């Protein structure tokens, strides 16, 4: 017990975050085993995992590194499409769907990281609003490019084409078909894979944040000039956070893309980026377990409100306003602090 008390606050938060994820997984597995989850809840488990990873990775950029990125869905789309190409083309060679999913997620993460470097190197020389605009533009550009890509696989290997749907394949399977997006992909994503991805993302992000590099990233966020004056390479550390986030978003994208037989590029437009940003802001900037809860809550919410029929999205928006107000209300915070003595210390600290 004394050991727990002597622990650093950051370690306590990390342990709490891991425990939260593992406990949620065990509870859901237990419910699944007893058949107590409706189909509609079961169907949302994988997307929830994807959105949690998206929110965690964007939190690294927005919360920890302090850059406003509005094109995070762009990295997700890179991951989704490259993951689909990897998974479909390996269908004959790699028998185990779990292994294929893992390879697809690695491929998605790698290509999204490359995209992250390409966007990050020029963009991270900009600051504040300018960076936001560049990332917004990137998100749009990537969707427009993906709408023109055609890809397929046959005995001779992968075939790609731009703008022209003719792939010159012999008995091939089309994988990406322009504005239709991915076509006839076999679903291989699973909730367990999503859970593992969330754990890996948490591990990467929490370790990065609590490392020397993480402190440098936060130093750049808090005061760029002071950080530079002590010899911190500003662009390097900003890029580190940005590319890590891009890679994780790519892996989430691959998991997402392989959960549906067809995903269109328009799915990854700026609305999706803003949605992920909402998760991050609602969960609290820099607060990882907050992002997890917010992403899960806001993904389930619109589905849980199907009873409202046509007014669903209106009610959704109002609930969003309510939650924002409630989480930022000092009176409520004080009340919570009084109810849970442990939280009082946390509230006082920050």
């Amino acid at each position, binding site marked *: 017990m004394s050991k727990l008390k002597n622990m650093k606050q950051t370690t306590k938060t990390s342990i709490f975050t891991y425990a939260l994820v593992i406990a949620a997984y065990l509870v859901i597995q237990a419910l699944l085993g007893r058949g107590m989850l409706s*189909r509609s809840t079961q169907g949302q488990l994988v997307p929830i995992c994807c959105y949690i990873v998206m929110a965690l990775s964007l939190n690294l950029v927005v919360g920890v590194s302090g850059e406003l990125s509005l094109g995070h869905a762009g990295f997700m789309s890179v991951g989704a499409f490259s993951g689909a190409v990897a998974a479909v083309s390996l269908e004959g060679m790699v028998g185990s769907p779990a292994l294929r999913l893992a390879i697809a997620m690695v491929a998605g993460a790698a290509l999204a990281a490359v995209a992250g470097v390409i966007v990050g190197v020029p963009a991270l020389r900009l600051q504040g609003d300018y960076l936001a605009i560049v990332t917004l533009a990137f998100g749009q550009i990537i969707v427009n490019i993906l709408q023109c890509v055609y890809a397929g696989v046959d005995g001779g290997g992968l075939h790609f084409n731009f703008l022209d*749907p003719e792939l010159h394949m012999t008995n091939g399977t089309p994988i990406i078909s322009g504005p239709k*997006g991915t076509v006839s992909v076999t679903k291989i994503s699973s909730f367990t894979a999503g859970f593992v991805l969330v754990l890996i993302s948490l591990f990467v992000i929490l370790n990065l944040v609590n490392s020397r590099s993480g402190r440098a990233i936060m130093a750049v966020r808090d005061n760029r000039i002071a950080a530079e004056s002590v010899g911190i390479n500003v662009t390097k550390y900003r890029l580190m956070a940005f590319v890590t986030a891009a890679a994780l978003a790519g892996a989430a994208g691959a998991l997402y893309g392989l959960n*549906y037989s*067809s995903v269109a*590029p328009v799915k990854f437009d700026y609305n999706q980026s803003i949605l992920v940003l909402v998760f991050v802001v609602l969960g609290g900037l820099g607060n990882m377990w907050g992002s997890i809860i917010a992403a899960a809550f806001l993904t389930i919410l619109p589905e849980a409100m199907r009873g409202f029929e*046509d*007014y669903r999205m*209106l009610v959704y928006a109002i609930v969003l306003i309510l939650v924002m107000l409630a989480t930022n209300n000092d009176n409520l915070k004080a009340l919570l602090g009084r109810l849970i003595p442990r939280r009082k210390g946390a509230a006082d600290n920050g």
Partner: protein
Amino acid sequence: MKKKNLAALLLAGAMCFGLLAGCSSSADSTNPPASDPGSQATQPAETGDVGGTGEGVTIKIGGIGPLTGPNAQYGIATRQGAEIAIEEINALGGIQFELNSQDDEANGEKGVNAYNNLMDWGMQILYGCTTSGSCAAVAAESYNDRVFQLTPSASSTTVTDGHDNVFQLCFTDPNQGKTAANFISEHKLATKVAVIYNNSDDYSTGIYQGFKEAAEGLGLEIVSTTTFPEDTTTDFSAQITDAYNKGAEMIFLPIYYTPASNILIQASQKGYEFSYFGCDGLDGILTLEGFDTSLAENVYVLTPFDTTSDAAKSFIEKYKAATGTEPNQFAADGYDCMYALYEACKKANITDGMGYAEVCEALIAVFTDSGFSVDGLTGSGMQWGTNGEVAKDPLIVQIVNGAYVNQ
């Protein structure tokens, strides 16, 4: 400051509750065609008997389409068309339909969510989705579960490819393109054609590809091909000028009517005179608010919806009375879907005790039967092949004096 925050919270809370209170009553009143006739009509069946085999059978149909978001107009049209058909069908006695419409925001992820929701509800037949993108994702699910699916308007070939349980009521996109090319060449409307299409839209790209393929074999020359993405549909001067400079006589518009109206306006402002040919997405241009319909004079539209028949006139009247708006071909597709399902259910003796998989196999057998054909607003003698595509005669109309004239 604190007081202000609290006041804001209270106000938002009040707004929310006010809405909830208003919602429960208005949600009921907006949906009478779906729920009320169903519940009323089952009563005589329970208490008594009017003869016939399908008495007391209420079949649960799940509908999916965009009811919110930028594509809501299409989803709402297909839902309302279906509701009008269900009202008529339920009034006939015999088989009763109950339609539960769920929103998918024209998005595959939400479409699958809506589908799962409907499966929890106990859906026996799936009616939808309205849009191709969402439908492709949902069709894979319904294929795995063996749920019979009939879509009013998802015209992409990916919807039916490899899914023997999915049937379309509309023409496929490439088919529309081919039909248009054939018509243009047969009637010698033009030899030099320009195409403006939306390259971020599956529907538009699909028609263009079918058109291009057919045009090559027919000696139609496509002199200019220009595109636009979904989010820039206001300025078309570059595309129109390109078509003009390359000497196009006709512009082929495989797009929806809102961007098409801008093309018509801007071409007339520039003083260019083209003839135009559009597909079923153009249907509705005459009802567009604030659009000078004289600009659409002589435009050819390939639409399945024949508004001149008696059945169509009665449908239009009912639709107007129920919604206050003119029905477009989406609504007519929805209406026809319900009648196709009704005829098929009668033929297959579907009962309410049957599980969705059993219903699916029975309906597939009926739909692919060569003796099964349906007459509707969007074509007579509609038949389906094993690939799920519909066979019906295309209808091409020309706009003359602000009204459709069959060609």
